């Protein structure tokens, strides 16, 4: 998230020669400013101000709509911000491969461990192709309130120059790859609910349609520059909601879709009768650790800069996650008599989920409150509510991600603190920030943000549930959802992929 810092021309005394030298060097690699009527060359003061803007993630003198001056840094990404963004993108990919794959893989029975890995790998390749064709464009090119447009199809025009709609200093191709990793992990989360019993071909078709029907519109509405629910950046937002790193876009969409899909799909054969205990809690724990580490890229990276907001997100993510990973097993210890490894792991993931929409907007006290809520509410859903209703959410995608994402989105509305994020503050000078123009800043100041958050929760929930139900029935009609009983009983590894996760016993080498 770019920070709007008005580029006050700073009057600087003497000691400028080193700065000037630096600016000159940077300028040699910089292409000339794009189109527009000829702007004046920046003077030395302006050039120093542009460098300061880089340091504080503000805008160049030339970034304003009616700028009369060019910048020696026009089109140039900032190396520090870019470095963090590339690191973050890799961290978020690491969450899926192999973090989530191992977290889920450990929780299924041994005959299905490879099917989970295969599904995570499939989604990574498939979504990347969709993202290149038009996914990125439909989300991040301006267009309508619900969808973007095709201006960036095949990533045309998406090069190393920053796109000022999303960041002044991060290359747009890096931003596109960073956002791709979110688009990958979101459908991969759904796998948890439908594990061990859905045809590979059905998953292929379902996920392809789901990206277009649920993810692309939801991501555009929340994060697209002219998105309907983008309270932070869209001056004309219909719902002035805020979602820092994807509580609604990632966790609510995947979690609620997971519930609907697992209901339509039906329970695993033998559910409630056979032992379906996790086959390897050790790899589940390894995956959990990778998710936690990778999530720093997810949350702090969502600042789209290595700036003050990223630093805050890094801190709140740590606090909420650690608290939740402590609270969940303690609740187990009290209620069931034993703190379990799966309890520690689930608490950590729940903490990460719930802090996701809030991490760049709440302070450290807010993060601890969120951590406690994350340790208790999803825990209650996984332990009690699931048993009451009897749905087979195999690996608790609904309990952790839908419930966690929903309470996270709501608590963001309650706990958002404008002191940690200038984008929620009322602007006093021109140009006014979008939050001032669309009223978000006043809503936050009046502690009424939770109402806007509830509206966004409602829209997200309906989109995810209705979209998923329609797609699931289409897929059921076209390729069928379930494998045969024989295939499911034998395990998906051998039948769908022709491989086994583990070779042990006599006769195996």
């Amino acid at each position, binding site marked *: 998230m770019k920070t709007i810092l008005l580029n006050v021309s700073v009057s600087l005394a003497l000691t400028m020669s080193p700065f000037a030298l630096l600016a000159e060097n940077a300028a040699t690699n910089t292409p000339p400013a794009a189109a527009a009527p000829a702007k004046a060359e920046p003077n030395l003061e302006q050039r120093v101000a542009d460098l300061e803007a880089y340091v504080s993630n503000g805008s160049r003198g030339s970034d304003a709509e009616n700028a009369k001056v060019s910048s020696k840094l026009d089109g140039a990404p900032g190396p520090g911000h870019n470095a963090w963004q590339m690191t973050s993108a890799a961290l978020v990919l690491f969450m899926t491969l192999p973090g989530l794959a191992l977290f889920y893989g450990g*929780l299924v029975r041994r005959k299905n461990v490879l099917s989970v890995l295969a599904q995570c790998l499939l989604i990574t390749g498939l979504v990347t192709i969709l993202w290149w064709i038009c996914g990125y464009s439909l989300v991040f090119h301006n267009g309508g309130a619900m969808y973007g447009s095709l201006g960036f199809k095949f990533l045309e025009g998406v090069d190393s120059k920053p796109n000022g709609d999303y960041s002044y200093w991060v290359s747009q191709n890096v931003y596109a790859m960073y956002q791709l990793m979110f688009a990958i992990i979101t459908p991969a989360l759904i796998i948890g609910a439908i594990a061990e019993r859905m045809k590979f071909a059905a998953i292929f078709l379902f996920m392809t349609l789901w990206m277009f029907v649920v993810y692309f519109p939801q991501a555009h509405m929340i994060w697209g520059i002219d998105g309907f629910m983008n309270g932070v950046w869209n001056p004309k937002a219909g719902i002035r909601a805020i979602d820092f790193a994807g509580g609604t876009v990632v966790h609510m969409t995947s979690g609620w879709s997971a519930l609907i899909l697992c209901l339509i799909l039906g329970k695993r054969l033998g559910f409630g009768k056979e*032992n*379906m*205990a*996790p086959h390897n809690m050790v790899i589940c724990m390894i995956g959990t650790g990778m998710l936690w580490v990778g999530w720093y890229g997810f949350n702090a990276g969502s600042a789209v800069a290595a700036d003050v907001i990223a630093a805050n997100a890094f801190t709140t993510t740590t606090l909420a996650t650690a608290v939740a990973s402590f609270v969940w097993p303690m609740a187990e210890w009290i209620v069931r008599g*034993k703190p379990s490894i*799966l309890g520690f792991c689930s608490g950590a993931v729940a903490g990460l989920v719930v802090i996701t929409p809030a991490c760049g907007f709440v302070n450290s006290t807010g993060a601890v409150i969120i951590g406690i809520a994350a340790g208790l509410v999803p825990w209650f859903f996984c*332990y009690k509510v699931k048993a009451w209703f009897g749905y087979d959410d195999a690996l*608790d995608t609904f309990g952790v991600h839908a419930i966690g994402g929903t309470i996270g989105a709501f608590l963001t509305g309650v706990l958002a603190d404008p002191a940690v994020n200038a984008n929620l503050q009322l602007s006093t000078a021109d140009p006014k920030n979008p939050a001032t123009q669309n009223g978000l800043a006043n809503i936050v100041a009046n502690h009424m943000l939770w109402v806007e958050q509830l509206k966004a929760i409602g829209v997200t929930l309906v989109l995810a549930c209705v979209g998923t139900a329609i797609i699931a029935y289409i897929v059921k009609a076209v390729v069928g959802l379930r494998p045969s009983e024989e295939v499911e009983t034998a395990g998906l590894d051998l039948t769908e992929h022709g491989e086994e996760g583990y070779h042990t016993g006599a006769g195996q080498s």
Partner: protein
Amino acid sequence: MDGEGSVRTSETANPKRQMKKIEAIIKPFKLEEVKDALGQIGIEGMTVSEVKGFGRQKGHTEIYRGSEYTVDFLPKIKIEVVLGDDQLDNAVATIIKAAKTGKIGDGKVFVSTVEEAVRIRTEEKGKAAV
């Protein structure tokens, strides 16, 4: 012991082949103690397998988030030793002494007669092979 009479008969027929097999089901953590104790009384070989089963102890309950599973079969270790008749009583007593905790689930010892034994490398037969 069951079938003692018939065993005696075969022993008189071929005294070199008076062999018995001990199958002892024990708690896994007692394996080292039992192995060492048998080594000390001169038992030179054994076969060990990880097995699962239940007797009076029954199983246990595992809980993974909201799902509770009763596991009927508990992990145990099965030790198989084939030895000469003369070592039998001492070996059984040694196993019992080493494996006993006094709590439910300590396991069982079974003894049966072995008809023949052959050492594959040398083709020795009977007691010389075990």
